[in-house]
């Protein structure tokens, strides 16, 4: 994941102002989640038949994130999605969605049906079953959504959207085809109906898109068109990413391709991005597009991984001497133990810090994180810098502190003393506000057999080298 995440979440203005509002649209600030799920329990049935389907679920989604929810069927993903979408009444816990027009989050708890309807209008739903009105044409079905938020340019956008989704007069290979705009659903294939339903969900430019298996009925090309659109609606991507999708041959047959003519449409439709998408899916073709992967089992969120953070931590661990030599699978496992579910570009809020006290720490500028000569104990940690820079000092032969290095995000310190079981060999001071992941000593014991010889060799060959602490 690229480091432009931070920029994209702040630049989500522009075309997404949600037509006709008197107030200028206010995007949530970087730290504020677009969607917040807090302690949500849910029960079906009543009396004897009452069964709990959701157990104390917490989830935060930032603006512009593409979230994929996975889990076995019956794990509660769809129920959670309907609760977020205001289709069911919240029973326990709270769900807050950022309200673009008020510039504040709106809580779904205790909301009357009338207000729930307003919330639903701001969302884009893509249903597993398309549920188009049988008597209306594809075009008219899309207009059913437009009628909820009429805008002068909606007609042009609907045309663009349907054309982009391969329902217009050109197919993915640029060949002429009959436009499907005026077909009623019974004359469309399953995949075409699904794409009409997707157009209906996206035409009002929702800030939050909720999708239940959106690509299940789609062939490779249209599936790729849909997921690409959702990704670009989230945030702009490098042009080269698009070029790669213009592929052909075997890869096109398996994973689909975009047509050259779709690209200007895509760019027009996506605008500057800023839409957040929650997808419930089992489709392996789109799993790897996620910014965040949420996994449910038996009504609980058991994993909530920010892909960028995972890659960041894995990469950082690989650079760290004690872990450089361990197997990739073990490294991946070790990295996942550290994750806190927040993008490394985003500073932590105090409540997030408090919640992950055992995995992450924050230091004010000037704080000495380690002191040279300090003995280590079982409670000592090694540190992996998440944000900010630190300065490393070491006493020279006359005992004066001398700055020997400056470390930044992705670099680590403090491992040597833990692995070699001897006092800290340097003083580390926060140069600015610094956040670090904490690696417990116990972790090092697991890999001692591999990492100790490696570090010894490194200390010999590179002294004073790049291993501090």
């Amino acid at each position, binding site marked *: 994941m690229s480091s432009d995440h931070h920029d994209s979440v702040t630049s989500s203005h522009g075309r997404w102002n949600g037509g006709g509002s008197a107030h200028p649209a206010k995007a949530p600030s970087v730290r504020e989640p677009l969607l917040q799920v807090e302690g949500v329990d849910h029960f079906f049935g009543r009396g004897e038949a009452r069964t709990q389907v959701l157990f104390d679920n917490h989830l935060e989604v930032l603006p512009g994130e593409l979230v994929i929810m996975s889990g076995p069927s019956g794990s509660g993903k*769809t129920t959670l999605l*309907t609760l977020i979408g205001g289709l069911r009444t919240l029973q326990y816990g709270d769900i807050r969605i950022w309200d673009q027009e008020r510039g504040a989050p709106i809580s779904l708890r205790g909301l009357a049906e009338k207000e729930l*309807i307003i919330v639903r209008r701001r*969302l884009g*739903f893509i249903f597993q079953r398309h*549920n188009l*009105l049988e008597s209306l044409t594809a075009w*008219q079905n899309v207009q059913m959504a437009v009628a*909820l938020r009429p805008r002068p340019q909606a007609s042009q956008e609907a045309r663009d959207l349907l054309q982009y989704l391969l329902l217009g007069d050109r197919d993915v290979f640029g060949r002429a085809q009959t436009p499907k705009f005026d077909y009623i659903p019974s004359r469309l294939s399953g995949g075409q109906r699904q794409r009409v339903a997707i157009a209906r969900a996206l035409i009002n430019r929702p800030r939050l898109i909720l999708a*239940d298996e959106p690509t299940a009925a789609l062939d490779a090309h249209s599936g790729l068109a849909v997921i690409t659109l959702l990704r670009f609606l989230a945030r702009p991507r490098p042009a080269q990413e698009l070029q790669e999708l213009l592929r052909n041959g075997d890869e096109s047959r398996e994973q689909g391709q975009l047509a050259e003519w779709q690209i200007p449409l895509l760019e027009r439709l996506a605008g500057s991005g800023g839409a957040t998408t929650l997808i419930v899916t089992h489709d392996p073709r789109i799993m790897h597009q996620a910014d965040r992967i949420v996994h449910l089992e038996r009504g609980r969120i058991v994993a909530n991984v920010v892909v960028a953070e995972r890659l960041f931590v894995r990469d950082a661990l690989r650079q760290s001497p004690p872990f450089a030599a361990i197997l990739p699978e073990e490294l991946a496992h070790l990295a996942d133990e550290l994750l806190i579910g927040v993008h490394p570009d985003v500073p932590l809020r105090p409540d997030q810090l408090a919640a992950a006290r055992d995995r992450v720490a924050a230091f004010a500028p000037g704080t000495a994180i380690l002191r040279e000569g300090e003995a280590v104990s079982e409670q000592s940690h090694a540190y992996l810098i998440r944000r900010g820079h630190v300065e490393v000092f070491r006493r020279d032969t006359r005992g004066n502190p001398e700055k020997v290095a400056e470390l930044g995000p992705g670099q680590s310190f403090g491992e040597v003393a833990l692995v070699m079981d001897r006092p800290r060999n340097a003083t580390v001071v926060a140069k600015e506000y610094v956040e670090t992941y904490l690696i417990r000593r116990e972790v090092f014991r697991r890999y001692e057999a591999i990492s100790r010889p490696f570090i010894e060799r490194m200390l010999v060959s590179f002294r004073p080298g790049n291993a501090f602490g």
Partner: protein
Amino acid sequence: MLLPVLVAWRNLTYDPIRCGLYTLGIAFAVVLMGVQSGILNAMLESNTRLLQSLEADCVLIHPQRSSLMFRPAFPRLRLEQARAVRGIERVTPLYLDYQAGEWLATQVPRPERRPKRRIRVIGIDPRMPPLTGLHIPPEDWQRLQQPGTALYDRRARPDASRGTSTVYGPLGEGCTGELAGQRLTLVGSGFTLGFDFAADGTLIVSEQTFARWLREPFTPPGMDPLDAVDIGLIRLQPQAPRKQILDELRQRYTPIPDVEVLTLEQLIQREQRFWLMNTPIGFAFGAGMLLGFIVGLVICYQILSGNIADQLAQYATLLAIGHTPGFLRMVVTAEAMLLAGSGFLVGIGTTAGVQSMLEGWTGMPFHFTPVRVVVLGGATVGMCWLSARLAARHVEKVDPADVF
């Protein structure tokens, strides 16, 4: 506002065959209601055809006379008060008999004679007959001045078992018979009034004939047999101030307990109300109309709720994307109104066809008055609206969470 109508229109029309069946279903109910009300109207109208052919601006009648069929009458003297009012051209008495006049056709050979049968007899001064609606030629009126003659109704109740003959036997120029036991000759070319609930046929006789044949036998000696007038017909001078004169007449007759002043229209309405309220006709055809209404209600409800049931998931989806239950109710109501419109057009056309057929068979006067069209349209709309209200309760049960 337009969107629900468009959705409703598409819902109904996207399958043309079903759409046709829907329309026929509603039209069927409209025809039921329309024909029943047509027959009822025709019956009431045929019962007042005599009154409608009178030439009068207003009438004098005994206030307790609930129907022309029944007495009391009022004293002839009462006509004089009216004659004194300025602007009145003339005041004519009209004598009616429903009870005493029994006709026996005597020229028919005895074995084939029909039994004596009551016939309505109108007694009138043939020199200035106020019965312009019957289009009787002046020479017939001339001939009526001869005592012992009568004009006859060519459309008396036909005798179903004997072809063209009437239930009275043959009625025609020169036919002779006995009216209340006295010999009478039919003259003239006949008029067309028709039969109704009160009378199977009608004879028109002069005042003298009426007095001698029907009144004298029952009048005490020394009394004027023509003293009891059934209706006093008042004709105003042309350009006379109608309302003012009516007010003056009413004022003059207020202290007199046995006469009241009515316009001819009021009398017609009173007569129609009598038949509607006091006979089973009103109930029978009222029930028929109600039945049509209920049949239509059920048909429309079935169409609408079937339509909802077919599209439950689609409606749930509309709710899920932010449409309101009110929007769905509007779609259902718009469907009902479209059905009402198409059903009404087809139905009223069919009703007109059925009515002209019935008119040909029975001779009853069927008319589409604007009031009847409006009432029938109102009933159709009301029927469909009510079924939309009932069907919309299915919409209330649509749960947007069902779409997942």
